[in-house]
Structure formats: structure tokens, C-alpha cells
């Protein structure tokens, strides 16, 4: 209440980034490696949500599925088809890995939309690790499966010979930029959306603007619901595309 009163008196106060602060759940100490923080809490909730959807909801193993089981099957079919279509038949053995990424991202994104929630996937530490895991997996799989032929990915044999070295440099750069774009796309989208909602919420302190602010927050929230799913989808499908490059490196 004091904040609102203060805001009306002394101008607007925005704390759009406060929601992203990592802090310990118990006590006031610093954040060490193994400290139980709000990150731990919301990741644990994501795990619980995934277990609830994928394990508990499917426990009846009904030939005629319940509502929860339908959603679990839908998620399974969605990712499975994506892996099969994009990465090919031999990409299917990476399906549990890709399913893990998709389920974690989509669950964390949606949990982050709950009021007062902490969005784990809005942190570059998290999305960066996810992207690097994909990057290293793809690189290692590429070299293990194809050896040095994997480097053919950078040698565009369909281009004129004179252009090939230049293209190779561009390809190499783009290859190493992948984890950066991969992680910043996800983290940046979520961070920006959540911050914008917070900014609109800050405007609600002015009585005249507050109805408009509420409408804007509602609209942004709808958009964020869309973004939460789309970013998980984009991350997953890009993983499949990168995996396809590793499995079938020829252009």
C-alpha cells in the first residue's frame, strides 16, 4: 500500500526487474551453489507439474484416455512427430532428451506466468546451459557419427569454388553463434514480456490510467501465454534442426 501511495505522490516507480532476482528461500545469506533459492522452488514445481502430467495422469493407462492422459499423449505425439519429421527416423533415439527439454521449458514458462512466480527460463544462466547442452550434444553426435566428414557442413559444395572459403567462414561463425541466439531468444522473450507486464502494472498506480493499464496487462498476459508456448516450441524445433545437421551433415 505504501508503494502505491508513494507512487502517486512522488512520481511513478517501476521495478520491472525485481521479479528476476535470485534470492535464498530461507534466511538472508548470499546465494551459494547449493543454496535453496526461489530457482530451486520453481524448478521443483516444474518437476512436480511434469510428473503430475506425464506420470500420474497416465497411471490408468486407459485405452480411452482421461483428460490428463489426453494432454500427456498430445505432448508426446507433438514432440515425437516433430523429432521424426525434422530430425528424421534416426533422430528418434534422441526423443527422450528433446522431450525433456521441451517439457521443462514449456512447464517453466507457464509456471512463470502465475502471479508472484519466478520464471526460471527468463535467466540466461538457465537458457544458456540448455542451449550449450544442445550445442555440445549436436557437435559430439556429428563428430562421432561422421568423423571429419561432419566438417562438410561448413563446406557448401553447391556454391562456386571461389565463394566456398568465405561461405565456410560464415557457416562456422553462424554455427558458433547458434547457442547464443538459441538461448537469448528464449530468455530474452520471457524476460521482456514479464518486464513489460510489470511496467504496465507500475502505471496502474495512477488512478486515471489504471483501467487502461489493467486492459494492457490482460492483453500482454494473453500474448505471454502464446509466447510461453511458442518459445518452447521454437527452442525444441531448432534443437531438432541442429540435430538433423549432425545426423545428415550434407546440405
Amino acid at each position, binding site marked *: *500500500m*505504501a*508503494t502505491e501511495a*508513494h507512487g502517486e505522490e*512522488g512520481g511513478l*516507480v*517501476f*521495478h*520491472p*526487474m*525485481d521479479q*528476476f*532476482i*535470485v534470492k535464498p528461500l530461507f534466511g538472508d545469506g*548470499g*546465494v*551459494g*551453489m*547449493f*543454496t535453496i*533459492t526461489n*530457482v*530451486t522452488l520453481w*524448478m*521443483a514445481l*516444474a*518437476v512436480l507439474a*511434469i*510428473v503430475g502430467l*506425464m*506420470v500420474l495422469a*497416465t497411471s490408468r*493407462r*486407459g*485405452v480411452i*484416455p482421461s483428460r490428463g*492422459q489426453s494432454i*500427456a*499423449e498430445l505432448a*508426446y*505425439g507433438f514432440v515425437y512427430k516433430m523429432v521424426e519429421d525434422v530430425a528424421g527416423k534416426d533422430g528418434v533415439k534422441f*526423443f*527422450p*532428451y528433446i*522431450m*525433456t*527439454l521441451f*517439457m*521443462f521449458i514449456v512447464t517453466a514458462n507457464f509456471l512463470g506466468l502465475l502471479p508472484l512466480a519466478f520464471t*526460471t527460463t*527468463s*535467466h*540466461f*544462466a*538457465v537458457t544458456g*546451459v*540448455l542451449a550449450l*547442452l544442445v550445442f555440445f550434444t549436436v557437435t559430439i553426435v556429428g563428430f562421432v557419427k561422421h568423423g571429419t566428414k561432419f566438417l562438410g557442413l561448413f563446406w557448401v559444395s553447391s556454391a562456386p569454388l571461389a565463394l566456398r572459403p568465405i561461405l565456410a567462414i560464415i557457416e562456422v561463425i553462424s554455427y558458433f553463434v547458434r547457442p547464443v541466439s538459441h538461448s537469448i531468444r528464449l*530468455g530474452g522473450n520471457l*524476460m521482456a514480456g514479464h518486464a513489460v507486464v510489470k511496467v504496465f502494472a507500475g502505471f496502474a498506480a495512477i488512478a486515471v490510467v489504471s483501467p487502461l493499464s489493467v486492459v494492457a496487462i490482460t492483453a500482454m498476459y494473453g500474448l505471454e501465454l502464446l509466447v510461453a508456448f511458442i518459445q518452447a516450441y521454437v527452442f525444441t524445433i531448432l534443437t531438432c534442426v541442429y540435430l538433423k545437421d549432425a545426423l545428415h551433415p550434407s546440405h
Partner: protein
Amino acid sequence: MATETHEAVGEGLADATGVAAHGADAAPGMPQLDFSTFSNQIFWLLVTLVVIYFVLSRIALPRIAAVLAERQGAITNDLTAAEDLKRQAVEAEEAYNKALADARAEAQKIVAEAKGEIQAELDVQIAKADAEIAAKAAESEKAIAEIRATAMQNVEIVAKDTAAEIVRALGGKADTATVEAAVNSRIKG
């Protein structure tokens, strides 16, 4: 609360002035760039991913795959069964149609036979009746002829008697032979 607000204002200003001025502090402009929390986040992320991976790959995904396969199997079986039943239905219909046609042919045969029998019997009876009728007609004709002959005879006798009586009544003397000759010539004439 009020003091917190004041502090927050300070931070907000720091946000506005930029991350660089504030970067190393406990609460920098962008918490995403606060590297002191990275190890914590990465640690818990890896724990989370490992847990999710094992839950999915050991329990959830095989289970869902089994359920989907089972459903696919059930659907395939049902479709096969439906195909089978449909075929049986078609067969049954064919058999029914055939039985119907057979029965119809049989019925027609029976009708034709019955008709033939009846016709034959009828012919026989009609012939018999005709013969009887002809016999009776002949008999009747004979009887009529007899009656006619008797009647002619009677007429002759009556005429002769009558003529004789008339002659006698007129005072003549009736000669039997003359009267008979006269009557005979008259009847013939």
C-alpha cells in the same frame, strides 16, 4: 514498507542510469547478469533436467508409447473385426437372396404342376361330362322318337275311329276298309 519503497526508488534510478554503474552489487540492474547466482541456477537446472529425464525416459514415455501402441492395436483389431462382420453380412445377404430366388422358383414350379394337374383332371371330367351328356341326349332323343311314333299311331287310330263315328252319325254305313284307306290317304296327303 515506506523505507523499502525509498530503497526501491534508488534501485530504479540505478536501472535507468545503467547496468555498468551498478553491476557488481548484490542486486544489479539485470538480475540475469548477476554472475554470482549462475552457479546456483546451473546446479539446480542440471538436477532438474536429470530428474525430468529419468522420470520421462524410465516411466512416462515407455508408458505413453505402450498406451498408444495398445490403442493402435485395438483400433486395428476392431477395424479387422468390422471388415469381417461386413463381409459376413454381405455373404448372409447373398445367401438370403439366393434362398429367396430358390423358394420363388420352387413355388412357381409347384404352381405350374398344380395347374397342370388341375387342367388334366378338368379335361377328364369335362370329357366324362360331355360323354354323359351325349348319352343322355341320345336316350332322350330315342324316347322322344318313341313318344312321337306312339302319338302318330294314336292319332291314326283316333282319326279312323272319329271318321268311322262321323260317317255313322251322318247315317252312312261305315266300311272299315274304306275309312282306313281314306284316313291314310288324308294323313299322307
